[in-house]
């Protein structure tokens, strides 16, 4: 099982004022705030930690169901420039983060021995409305999955359960394929495992 999360750095700079009073305190533990404060580029560390938390949370909710907004319960440890560990209710998730000048993208998995996602794709979105971008992302997922697995794409559809957790379903097949999807600003990514 995998989870992922992306932050478009330009959108984040425009839409989130991380210096506002209470922002860091509500989202990060004391230790994480210290990491942000000591980082050479605080914004990059902040969004790295945030995407780590989000990507692990997405696995957790798929495992156990239910939704909550409790960033303080999700603890991040930085292991290297790219790898990290996230703990949520005693469960550990391994993360890999990719940082570019445009975005910060984290992918989490349940344990480090698990296989990599068999499809992991990150792409730029046209400057469309949010709804049109969403439709584009869904189409892209179906197309890429169909090509990758040699399935006929007409039978594939992307659905969400009552908690908003996405999955691919195949016509005539009862099994569902878990997909983790992330979209922020002009970037989107998905993983399938």
């Amino acid at each position: 099982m995998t989870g992922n999360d992306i932050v478009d750095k330009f959108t984040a700079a425009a839409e989130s004022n991380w210096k506002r009073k209470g922002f860091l305190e509500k989202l990060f533990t004391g230790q994480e705030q210290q990491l942000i404060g000591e980082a050479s580029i605080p914004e990059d560390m902040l969004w790295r930690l945030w995407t780590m938390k989000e990507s692990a949370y997405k696995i957790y909710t798929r495992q156990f169901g239910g939704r909550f907004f409790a960033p303080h319960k999700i603890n991040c440890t930085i292991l290297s420039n790219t790898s990290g560990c996230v703990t949520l209710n005693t469960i550990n998730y391994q993360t890999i983060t990719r940082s570019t000048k445009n975005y910060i993208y984290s992918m989490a998995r349940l344990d480090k021995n698990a296989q990599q996602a068999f499809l992991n794709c990150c792409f730029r979105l046209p400057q469309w409305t949010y709804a049109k971008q969403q439709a584009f992302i869904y189409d892209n997922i179906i197309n890429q999955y169909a090509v990758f697995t040699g399935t006929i794409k007409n039978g594939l559809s992307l659905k969400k359960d009552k908690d908003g957790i996405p999955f691919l379903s195949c016509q005539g097949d009862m099994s569902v394929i878990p997909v983790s999807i992330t979209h922020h600003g002009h970037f989107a990514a998905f993983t399938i495992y």
Partner: protein
Amino acid sequence: MSKDAMIEKLKSIVKPYVKNEEGFNNLNADSDFMKDLKINSANLVDVILDIENEFDILIDNESMEKMLTVQSAMDTINAKLGEK
């Protein structure tokens, strides 16, 4: 404050962060900040900080955990105002 007045106040608070206009136009007590209004999770903290400022209350982590819908936000606001 009446329920309608509070919903109106919350509507003006969430407006800058909403990505789904249709969800915003149909905003009601059952609206989900992320699922229906498509508010980014990183902006949910802005909604919470704006609520704190607007109603002059402090929202602790435990209360924040459940604030995923307009109704749960109203419940928290009323509880915090009641403690004053």
